[in-house]
Structures are given as structure tokens and as C-alpha cells.
């Protein structure tokens, strides 16, 4: 299990293909915060997002912020459960060129094939570790769709964002799939012992 540093947005697909499920990754550059309502607006209501998502790293978040003048400052920024938003994976990659989605708890198996076909990664963050995550957000550079607060479209500049674990890679491997398969086998053994 290798360790990598990747800067987003990426332009070279090789940056994605070198990552393997289980690897540790630290992210630099810019990441985009997104949540349920943001994606419902894009895909169910058909509103074009006012930010470029090509090569982007999306974070499942609803940040706690405070407004100082006309800028937002981070108070407490953490990450939410991803599974609720799995249905947006394919269109995010196919229509907008998103390359990475980061959240907690993983995606179910239906994300594996679109991520393989479109060269995308699912990154597992440590859920709930918001005190640490907040220190890695250098600046909130842009906020769109403020009326959806806190489920706006956020642009964060980050430094040493992580540690992240590659949960699903672009080669069809998913740690979540493997852990569930092993756990179901184990359950059979445990039931037999009861």
C-alpha cells in the first residue's frame, strides 16, 4: 500500500490510474464541497453548476462557517456519509469530468463500474475528524448557490488534506466490496458457532 501526494484539479489521467485501493493519499490544491441538495439541483433540476468541475476533487460536506465581510471563514468543516449520493457518480464523471469523490463510509458496488469506465477515484476520509480537517482548509475561495446554505457549491484551497485512503480505485477494486464479502463469509462461520 503506497503513499502519494496528488494536486487537484488534475489534468493527467495517469495521476488517477497510479492510485490503488488501500493506498494513502494527501491532497493539495483546490477541492469542491458539494452535498445532497447541490447535486439534486444540478441533475434533477437541470441547473448548470457555475464552477468548472473538470478534473475536480469533490468533497461531501456541509461546512460550518462564519461570514466576515463578504467572505466566509471556516468554523468547523467535516465530511458526510457518501452512500446517499451514489447515483450522481456516473453523471458527475461523464458530463462534468469529475475525477475524485471524497466522503465517509464508502459507496456501494454500483459505483465501481462507472468509476472504472470514467477513470474516477473514491477517497475515504476519516469521518467525524472535523477539527483536523478544518485546519487543512487554507481558504474558502468561492461560494456559489448561497441560498442552499450550507449545501452550497464551495471552493476550498487546501494544504496537506488527509490522510485519505483510496476506497475505490479506477481499476475496478473496492475495499468496501472486499470487506463486505469477507464479513458475510465470516458471519456464516460465527452463526455456525452460536
Amino acid at each position, binding site marked *: 500500500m503506497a503513499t502519494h501526494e496528488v494536486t487537484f484539479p488534475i489534468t493527467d489521467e495517469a495521476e488517477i490510474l497510479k492510485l490503488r485501493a488501500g493506498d494513502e493519499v494527501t491532497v493539495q490544491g483546490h477541492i469542491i464541497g458539494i452535498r445532497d441538495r447541490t447535486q439534486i439541483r444540478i441533475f434533477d433540476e437541470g441547473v448548470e453548476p457555475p464552477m468548472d468541475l473538470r478534473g475536480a476533487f469533490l468533497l461531501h460536506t456541509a*461546512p460550518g462557517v462564519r461570514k466576515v465581510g463578504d467572505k466566509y471563514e471556516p468554523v468547523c468543516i467535516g465530511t458526510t456519509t457518501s452512500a446517499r449520493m451514489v447515483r450522481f457518480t456516473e453523471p458527475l464523471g461523464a458530463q462534468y469530468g469529475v475525477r475524485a469523490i471524497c466522503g465517509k463510509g464508502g459507496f456501494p458496488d454500483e459505483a465501481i463500474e462507472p468509476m472504472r469506465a470514467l477513470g474516477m477515484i473514491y477517497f475515504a476520509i476519516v469521518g467525524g475528524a472535523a477539527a*483536523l*480537517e478544518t485546519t487543512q482548509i487554507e481558504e474558502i475561495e468561492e461560494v456559489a448557490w448561497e441560498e442552499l446554505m450550507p449545501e452550497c457549491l464551495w471552493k476550498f484551497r487546501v494544504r496537506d488534506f488527509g490522510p485519505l485512503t483510496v476506497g475505490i480505485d479506477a481499476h475496478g477494486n473496492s475495499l468496501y466490496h472486499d*470487506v463486505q464479502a469477507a464479513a458475510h463469509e465470516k458471519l456464516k462461520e*460465527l452463526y455456525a458457532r452460536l
Partner: protein
Amino acid sequence: MSTVATDIQQAVEDAAAHLYVWALKDIPQDLRDALAEAKDRETSIPGKRVLETIVRNVEIADSNSNLVCQDTGIAVYTCRVGEDFPLHPARIYEALKAGTERATLEHPLRSNAVHTLTRENTGPNTGYRLPIVHWEFISGWDGLDVKCVPKGSGSENMSFLKMCVPADGVNGIKKFVLESIVESGGKPCPPGIVGVGIGGSADYAMYLAKEAIARPIGTRNHDPHVAKLEEELYELLNETGIGPMGLGGDVTVLNCHIEHADTHMTLNPVAVNYQCWAARRASAHVAADGSVDFDREA
């Protein structure tokens, strides 16, 4: 009389406001110890990475005086009210609600409360029947114990109820708990506390499961049959291999707590309520004269 009542009501409100923020920022020592122990015990590489990060996060929350986790949850309070405590529970409820609102506005904390159908925000972490309060009444006592348990949605969404039949027996209970935790995978931010409620009725079993997650980690049920089941389930759950954040590993749960009630001869209800690694709780004791003692370990 009314002056005294107002002062005590203010004391309960102040205690609630303090407890909510305190619980969110400063996790109890038993939880810190359990997380540190889990970090040392874990052998999977991603699992160890997760636990090291959690421990580091708790330290950063301390040094930056920030929240441990961004999800301020729904405020749940458990109250033990002495029969001679000089404030009626209706007023205690008002005070808890006012305290929750004040803490949310003053800190400020993220407000999560919405109408369950319209999804419109209903107030600063308050609304119709929010916060949620569990009550217990104690005869021959004049004090009040309040415990605040902010409950995050990631773990609350992993709640399960099964009306096992008596013929399913204890094994039916074990299987349902195991299957629920495997199904939850990484979603409730494991490793945490698995709360189990058994017996009573459907609604009461779930209530008891919530009581169970609010206990100090690793405390055991007073009934030896139930305590034995707690130990067994704790061992079995850690054999599932789900691991920290569902990435695989040795530590799937920090512990398993069970609360029980006697039930109908035809019933065997089992409820599971998950509490994430950020198992936040903070307690206070309010005396009849309005003086307050905060006790982080209760």
C-alpha cells in the same frame, strides 16, 4: 416559591447550554482511553491510519477549542428527576430547550433541526418535540441529573428493529445485532458503541437501545445474564472484520451495551442504535438549591 422556581429554571437552562457545547468539544476520558487502546490494538494499515487520525483529531479539538466532529447532531437529554426536586418536569423541558437554543446561537453551532416533511429549518437545534428528553423519576430524592448526548445522523441512520419471536431465542438476538453492524459497514463512523435494547415493546426496545449508548464505555448491565450477552456480542462484533471506517480491521466496535426490560411471553424485540466513535456525552447534577456540579464521567 415562583422566584425559587425561576432561579432553578435558569440554573437548568445554563447547565443545558454548557453541556451541549462541552459535549461537542471535549469528549470523556473513558472514550479517549478506548480510542487510544483501539489504535494500539489495530493491525490493518488503513484501520491504524484511521485510528491515529481520530486520536490526533481529538487533540486538535482540545488545542483549537473546536468541535470534535462537525455534526452537532440532535440534542438528546436524559433526566433523572427526584420526586422532591423543586422544578416541575414541564419547566425542566422548557429550560433544556432554551439552553439548547442559546448554545446554538451563541457559539454558533450548526443547526440541523428541520420539519420532517417540509425539511424547513425549525429553529436553533430545536423544534416541535426537539430536543428529545428521556425521563426517569426517582422517589425519595430532591436532585436532578441531566446528561446531554448530541446524536449525529450518520450513526443514528444506522438504527434497526426486529421483532424476533421467542423461538428465535438469544441466538436470534445475536444474529440480528451482528447482521445490523455488518450491514452498517463504514457509514456510522466505526468503531463506536453498539447500543442494544431487548424486551419491553417495539418502541421501548429502541428507547432502551438509546439509553445503552449513553453509558460510560464498557460498563456492564446489572443483570448477569444481560452482562454476559454484552461480553459475547462485543467479542463477536469485533470478529466481523468491518474495521475502522469500514475499511477492514480488528476494531469494529469499541463496546456493546445492552439495556433490557421484561416483556410479554410472546415477544422478543431487539433494537440496535449505533453510536459513532465521537460518542459525545456530558453530565450535570443540579441540587435542590440550584447549585450545579458538572461531571464528565457520568
